[in-house]
């Protein structure tokens, strides 16, 4: 029998991976919920307000982005616009080549994953080191992140110890503290030797040109302390209008992402080193990346651009918990990824058109989203788009014949009567794949088609 790709992936996932993902997401989700409820009288009001502000921002990018550009330039930063992944990669490379740079240290940025920056730079002879511990482990393992906040949520510490040993980072030891210390020793030297530091940005404030970067490891700060040039890769939707909006967004982001009141490091960056400042990058570049975002803005799914990449939707998602992020074949997994990835795929939409189907539409994601994105509605809109564009739908019963049946009362009543055959015909003879998919793991209740209508008739007499 044919099922959806993500369902097939689930059957191949190792039980210990599923356990890692399930345990990690569940614990963070529960802690997040408790923290929000304990500290705010009406967390839902905050989510709604944040959603409105972010919606306003994405609907006014035409004025907010030029404003941000103006303020960034006034602060001494250089601003670049990248229409797609290729343009963004070329711009990064041009900056590096102009400086004769060969070593880049990189804090976590999802946009760099999205534009596949690291392999591109490496092919041009540039060493590109991930400094976020999780991303570093992904890098040495030649793996892919499976969660946007916790890239190695699918790994346990024993696997990590093995890959450290394999990569010459000390004899096998699976103590998290030892692993961290070894990564730190390795990275310190790399920071000092690097030419350029790269970060993303969690927010860019239009009115002040302020970049906000949050981390828990301080790696972005290290990247910027030792290098002479800072490149920030920023999706164009990262804009918030005012500095004071940050109070709301930073409160929601840390709690939603990692169930913290505040991340350990929150950096506000407003340009390169100013005259009189003892250190910091002399040069700062901000590359605003579109890469399909304006198309999303023009679509009926534009609310997804509110996303602040906290990962709360994947933490609560019962499907994500069962399948892990790798099932989504995309940089952005989980509910947000199931919306965003097909949209960002552009002309390759059909390759990702199955992702929005990987949801029971339970709506748990809607309830945790810190910017109140109606995720399940967007999943539904993309299912409709997929159908209209001819996406294959393995395992789904054809709905045309069903709609004919359900729009003609006489045929419907006849079907209610005929359904009782289900109780008499051996299951193996029923040529309906959905029937077998159902009965593979469940029984079907006894057919009682038309009995209620009969009860009504008898009663009337």
């Amino acid at each position, binding site marked *: 029998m044919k*099922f*959806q790709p*993500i*369902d097939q992936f*689930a*059957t191949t996932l190792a039980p210990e991976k599923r356990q890692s993902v399930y345990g990690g997401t*569940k614990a963070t989700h529960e802690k997040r919920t408790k923290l929000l409820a304990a500290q705010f009288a009406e967390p839902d009001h905050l989510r709604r307000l944040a959603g409105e502000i972010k919606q306003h921002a994405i609907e006014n990018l035409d004025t907010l982005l030029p404003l941000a550009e103006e303020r960034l330039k006034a602060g001494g930063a250089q601003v670049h616009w990248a229409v797609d992944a290729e343009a963004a990669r070329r711009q990064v490379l041009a900056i590096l080549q102009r400086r004769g740079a060969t070593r880049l240290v990189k804090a976590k940025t999802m946009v760099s994953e999205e534009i596949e920056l690291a392999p591109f730079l490496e092919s041009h002879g540039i060493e590109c080191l991930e400094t976020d511990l999780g991303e570093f482990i992904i890098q040495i393992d030649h793996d892919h992140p499976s969660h946007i906040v916790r890239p190695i949520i699918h790994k346990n510490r024993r696997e990590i110890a093995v890959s450290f040993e394999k990569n010459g980072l000390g004899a096998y030891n699976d103590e998290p503290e030892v692993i961290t210390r070894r990564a730190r020793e390795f990275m310190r030297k790399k920071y000092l030797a690097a030419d350029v530091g790269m970060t993303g940005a969690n927010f860019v404030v239009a009115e002040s040109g302020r970049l906000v970067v949050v981390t828990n490891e301080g790696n972005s700060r290290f990247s910027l302390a030792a290098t002479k040039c800072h490149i920030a890769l920023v999706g164009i939707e990262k804009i918030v209008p005012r500095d004071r909006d940050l109070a709301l967004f930073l409160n929601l982001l840390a709690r939603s992402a990692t169930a913290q009141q505040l991340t350990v490091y929150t950096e506000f960056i407003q340009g390169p080193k100013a005259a009189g400042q003892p250190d910091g990058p002399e040069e700062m570049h901000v590359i605003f990346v579109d890469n399909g975002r304006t198309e999303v803005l023009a679509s009926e799914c534009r609310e997804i651009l509110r996303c602040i990449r906290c990962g709360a939707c994947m933490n609560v998602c*019962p*499907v994500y918990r*069962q*399948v892990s992020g790798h099932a989504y074949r995309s940089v952005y997994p989980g509910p947000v990824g199931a919306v965003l990835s097909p949209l960002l795929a552009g002309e390759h939409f059909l390759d990702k058109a199955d992702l*929005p*189907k*990987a*949801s*029971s*539409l*339970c*709506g*748990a994601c*809607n*309830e945790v989203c810190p910017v109140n994105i109606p995720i399940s*509605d967007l999943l*539904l*809109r*993309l*299912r*409709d788009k*997929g*159908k209209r564009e001819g996406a294959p*739908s393995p*395992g*789904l*019963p054809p*709905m*045309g014949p*069903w*709609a004919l*049946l*359900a*729009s*003609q*009362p006489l045929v419907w009543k006849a079907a209610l009567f005929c359904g009782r055959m289900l109780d008499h015909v051996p299951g193996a003879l029923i040529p309906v*794949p*959905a029937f077998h*998919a*159902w009965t*593979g*793991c*469940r*029984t079907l*209740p006894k*057919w*009682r*088609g038309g*009995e*209620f*209508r009969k*009860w*009504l008739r008898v009663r009337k007499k």
Partner: protein
Amino acid sequence: MMTIERKPPLGKKVQLMATCLCDAFYDDAAVATVQVLEHLGLTVEFPQAQTCCGQPAFNAGDWAASRRVARHMVRTFKGELPVIVPSSSCAAMVFHGSLLAFEHEPDLPAVEQLARRTWELADFIVHGLGVTTWPGRFDAAIAFHRSCHTRGSNSAEAAATLMRSIPGVNLVEFGEAEQCCGFGGTFSVSFPHISEAMGRLKLQHLRAAQPQVLVGVDTSCLMHLSGLAEKEGQPVKHLHVVQVLRDALKNGGLL
């Protein structure tokens, strides 16, 4: 979930949208709905031409097919009477899903007109009629599964309020109660392995609470969970909340 302002119910007459699952499998839940509504002094009209709310096609992404069915239902449930649905899922399809599917259609106003008078049963009893306590008797430890379509609506709290007020009912808590049971309509057959894993997790939590009866506001979730349990050889006793209300009346000699 509610995206439209609803009219307060007027008069003593309602229309029943029995749902396709009650039509095909759970006739007693539909019978109980009529009995409960009549106990509340209402006259129940059952438009014979009714079929299904259109949700299977809507969720499957075939919105054209879904609209075809929804249009049939709009024609079938003409008039101004409140439409009562013993399912949070089908009710949400009428007052939320169809509004999405008809967004760019000329007959959206007719769909909205139906949406404005459509109620999930427990929500209707508590918030439409203002009835917050239920008489009679029902002696059981009940695990109440809040199905996902009650999110953002008043239905789950309404059903819990009614059940809690019945003498003899003990609502037991269980783990990860806010998590989906894994049914998800067509999801259950196109993602059967994930659906099964989600259902087993739900059953594990439910069984740990040792209820005597599993109760829900949707027969769909109950069909999935009880089907899994029966296939395992460990069936669970399950009832729709309206059957609990009806049985409480019977046990109390009120019906």
